[in-house]
């Protein structure tokens, strides 16, 4: 089936993020998704190219097939069509057991090595702003084979060092000293991978597994590599750029806006004409 891509005026950045994220999933994978855009992205994948993906919601539904988008992972809608509905012990045990292929997460800050912060802005001991805290972000990111972060791209969010490492990237702190080491060194037999992509409102970023460094993979329509490098506080590797991020297809947009999120709870519609 040929893909009919939408034109730039037919979609917004949230659509693009959602579709780019959705394409990170392969069929039959076990996927752990949080509330919000990650949930829309994963359900889009389920309704397009990955009908047999197995969806885990942290609050305790396993291999769920909600006919309608849940408002959060604790929503009654999560349970519909699931293989098993239970609780957090099940969800986190499955993750630690190594059964999760992909985690979809968000973040407030990210550094060049994929460390993500969702805890506070500024010094932890005297923060400018206390955020939500970790939630399951570090847990899913510790155990999944791959994790994908969906983020708003602002220069203040792409930093050399995050204020607080909430969720482990490729180069993490070895305690008690706090020296940076490759995560492989710390995780032992639980090492299965790490962050594989950051999908921001500017482009798609990937990581070199050996060096752990982020590089720019594709630019969203209208953004150039140099421009995106300027949007980071660290020296972004743009040597491996691979063209433009594929736009949403019309079918994907239809599913997002007619099936998944008709009420524009997570993704606003772009008004045509």
């Amino acid at each position, binding site marked *: 089936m040929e893909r009919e891509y939408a034109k730039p005026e037919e979609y917004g950045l949230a659509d693009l993020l959602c579709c780019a994220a959705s394409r990170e999933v392969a069929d039959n994978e076990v996927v752990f998704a949080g509330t919000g855009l990650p949930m829309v992205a994963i359900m889009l994948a389920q309704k397009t190219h990955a009908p047999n993906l197995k969806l885990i919601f942290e609050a305790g539904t396993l291999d769920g097939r909600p006919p309608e988008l849940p408002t959060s992972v*604790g929503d009654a809608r999560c349970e519909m069509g699931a293989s098993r509905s239970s609780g957090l012990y099940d969800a986190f045990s499955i993750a630690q057991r190594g059964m999760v292929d992909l985690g979809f997460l968000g973040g407030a800050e990210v550094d060049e090595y994929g460390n993500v912060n969702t805890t506070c802005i500024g010094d932890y001991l005297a923060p400018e702003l206390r955020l*939500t805290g970790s939630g*399951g*972000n*570090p847990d899913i990111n510790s155990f999944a084979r791959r994790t994908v972060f969906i983020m708003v791209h602002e220069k203040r969010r792409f930093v050399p060092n995050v204020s607080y490492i909430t969720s482990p990237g490729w180069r993490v702190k070895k305690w008690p000293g706090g020296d940076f080491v490759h995560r492989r060194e*710390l*995780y032992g*037999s639980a090492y299965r991978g790490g962050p594989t992509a950051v999908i921001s409102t500017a482009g798609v970023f990937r990581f070199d597994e050996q060096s752990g460094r982020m590089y720019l993979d594709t630019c969203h329509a209208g953004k150039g590599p140099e421009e995106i490098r300027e949007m980071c506080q660290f020296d972004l590797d743009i040597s491996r750029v691979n063209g433009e991020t594929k736009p949403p297809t019309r079918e994907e947009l239809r599913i997002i806006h007619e099936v998944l999120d008709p009420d524009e709870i997570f993704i606003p519609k772009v008004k045509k004409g």
Partner: protein
Amino acid sequence: MSTSKRITLQQAAEVIGNGSSLTFSGFTIWRRPFALVYELIRQKRKGLHLIEVNGGPQTEFLVGAGCVDIWESCWVGHELYGKYGANLSRKVAEKAIIVEDYSHAEMLFRFAAASSGAAYAVTQTSLGTDIHNPEYDMLGRAGLRDGSNPHIARHKYRFTDDPFFDAGAQVLVPAVKVDVAVMCVQQVGEEGTVRLSGQYYSDPEAARAADITIVIAEEIVPEEYLRREADRNAIPTFDVDYIVECPFAGHPTGMFGRYDVDGAFLKDFYGRTRTQEGFDDFAREWIFGLDHHGYLEKLGWPRMMRLKANTALNYSPREPKGGK
């Protein structure tokens, strides 16, 4: 049964003394025992040590009201109805509360260990993060890890290596020590058997981890009815000390099969309580001077009927998503 477990909401709140460590049923904005949270605020409870697998509006209300000295958990917010916990954030900035951060799985495993009678749990989650930063052991920094407080372990973490299969670094997290768990559930039997519907979150672990467990249920049903299908019950009688019948006890949070989250209420709370004055104003409007029935009357029938779940769907098809 020789003795009844039934008590009133007021009595339930009185079980939780100043300085108690406390936890709740539910998950973020679902199945939180709000009727009791309100009653604790009315009774001006002080010095609570909240230990939660995850926080939510109940945390924000208790923290905003000044009931909480220590919060050990991993997350607070209102999901799509409020991005973060503004009351907690304000108290953190004022250093008016101690926050001890763990990861979500760590908190869950801490409860699982306690409920299974284990001294601690072994995990490999969150290695290399600042959650494990020894400088960020806030109870330690406050001098509270000297063994004198029965709720507080001597260490936030210990690290060790797997001696059995060379699996690498292991994180040891202490079992939680919880005085009281308050559950907000669909059904409880007269003797305390609890039947949960939908996801059960971390409720069985919370109920068993606590020394005293209070169950607030939409309805108290004949014990005999629940015992006809024992494999559908989540919490057995001897995990439960007190039961309270209180419909809509979870409002503004939601309950599978019974009612949806009141998104508009949470949005209003989130919007109005960035400042202490805002919180106090909100509390005067919605908490003080009311009892549970007064609260429901104030909410009004149209609102509550809109939230009521369709029992085939288990959620309300009438309640607009996103609290719009």
